[in-house]
């Protein structure tokens, strides 16, 4: 049913695992539709320096995850975004027709992780900073790590505001007390 290449990647999948504090996470599929893949990436200077994945799925899904992780590692973000599902299937020496959707998931999961990274970057660049110590704030952070202060956000513009401010210093709207 499967090519020897698929079986080889299924037996010894590369880059299995999770990355602590990854720069991007992409999760696609769910077991209801058959497979679920989670990709973690580390990015330095626009290059994907590390990729790890976890996959719940059939032989093809596991082999595809492994192949995608190998193909993406060391590539620039731009090049990694160009990896197509067809390329993945081709690299694996072909997949049975009814398993092609597994290869779709593989590239999708990688791309989702990259887009997650880019979204975080964008937020980072728009200058979301702690109003107390001026260090950059992560996307979903409600506590500033460097100064260990709880952060409140303006209901109107979404920017962090000092705890006791009555008016948002960014947009000038009244800050509602929760």
């Amino acid at each position: 049913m499967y090519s020897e290449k698929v079986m080889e990647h299924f037996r010894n999948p590369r880059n299995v695992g999770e990355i602590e504090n990854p720069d991007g996470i992409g999760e696609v599929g769910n077991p209801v539709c058959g497979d679920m893949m989670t990709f973690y990436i580390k990015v330095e200077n626009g290059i994907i320096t590390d990729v790890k994945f976890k996959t719940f799925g059939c032989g093809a899904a596991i082999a595809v995850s492994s192949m995608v992780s190998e193909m993406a590692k060391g590539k620039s973000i731009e090049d990694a975004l160009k990896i197509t599902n067809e390329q993945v299937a081709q690299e694996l020496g072909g997949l049975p027709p009814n398993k092609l959707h597994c290869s779709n998931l593989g590239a999708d999961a990688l791309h989702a992780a990259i887009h997650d990274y880019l979204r975080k970057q964008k937020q980072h660049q728009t200058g979301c900073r702690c109003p107390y110590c001026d260090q950059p704030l992560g996307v979903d952070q409600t506590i500033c790590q460097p100064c260990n202060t709880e952060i409140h956000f303006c209901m109107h513009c979404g920017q962090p505001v000092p705890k006791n401010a009555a008016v948002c210093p960014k947009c000038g709207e009244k800050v509602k007390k929760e």
Partner: protein
Amino acid sequence: MSPVCYFDHANATPINPEVLEAMMPFLKQNFGNPSSLHRLGQYARQAIETARQQTARLINAPPDAIIFTASASESNNLALKGLALAYRAKGNHIILSAIEHISILEQTKSLKRLGFEFTILDVDQYGKINLRQLAQAIKPNTILVSIMHANYEIGTIQPVKEIAAICHEKNVLFHSDGTAAIGRIPVDSKEIDVDAYTFSAQSFYGPKGAAVLYLKPGTRLTPLIEGGFQERGRRPGTENVAAIVGMGKAAEICHRHLPTWIQHLNRLAQRLYHELPTRIERLVFTGHPTERLPGVVSLCVEFVEGEALLLSLDEEGIAVASGSACSARTLKASHVLLAIGIPHAIAQSSLLLTLGKDNSDDNINLLLDRLPPIVQRLRSISPLYARYLRGENPYEFKTGHTHQDKEN
């Protein structure tokens, strides 16, 4: 290409050497057409009639109640369409269960186009139908009830005798698909009082290509194939003589040894029921705990996908089956597992072990030895298991494929 141990007897059984021996002359020198009048033809005719008697004896039926077909799927089609069309004047309503084989369920499409109506009965968490629901579902225009004797995916045995009694009280025909039951439990057509019964030779160490539709004498049937007198016009076409002879021999052997096989199968299955959970956590056994087929062990290994399990076991020389979506050509999870209320995500983890008479304790030992590390390896890759270990709900998902990140 032969596995070290074979646990997929629901899909095919190894052919018994005695059976093959009985078949061989009919693939070689005794090639005559049973419809021919010369001695070579009549020799084949005689062999078929002997096989008919042997096969009839297996289910305690008169020989003329046996119609030879080529597969259980064909028998199911002949039963449902053949009876529906023959009794059309009486009514157009048919009752099935939700866990029938697809060769029953798929026929609803074409029969609906011909004007028939269906009621599909739900099953409980063990896969059993509710007799009171069945009685209530029977309407004045009901002509046929088709409910399988036992289910091959979860092993649950239906109360066929009671079903037959309810049907006959309301003057409705009862067909039962016995493909999974035959060769695993004794089947007595008279005791069940079934009107039509499907089974095939490959369930009991016979060849593929030979199956039976038992039809109670006096029951009308519209043939699906026309143009010949074979099987008294009910299933025309030149007989597959060798396969039929093989089925007869297999039936004779099965009839003789079934009690011993059952004991053996029960003992091996009990070992798996007791020993698997001590070696692997989070197993969900499916089907009825006691009213089930000997040697059918059906379970879900949580957080691991069934096809990946199957492939890994195959690499170790262990042949099994799975009802997961990925192992099905249709890419849909088993309708049987979903019907008994197993959530989609857990149905993907289905593992089906159907044991056979030739399985040994060594086979069981090998499985018990090889399965745990395979499960461990696949779980170490699984994001669901990671969630479980973190104490999160492994089965909470965003629905569908999520491409929203891309669109942002």
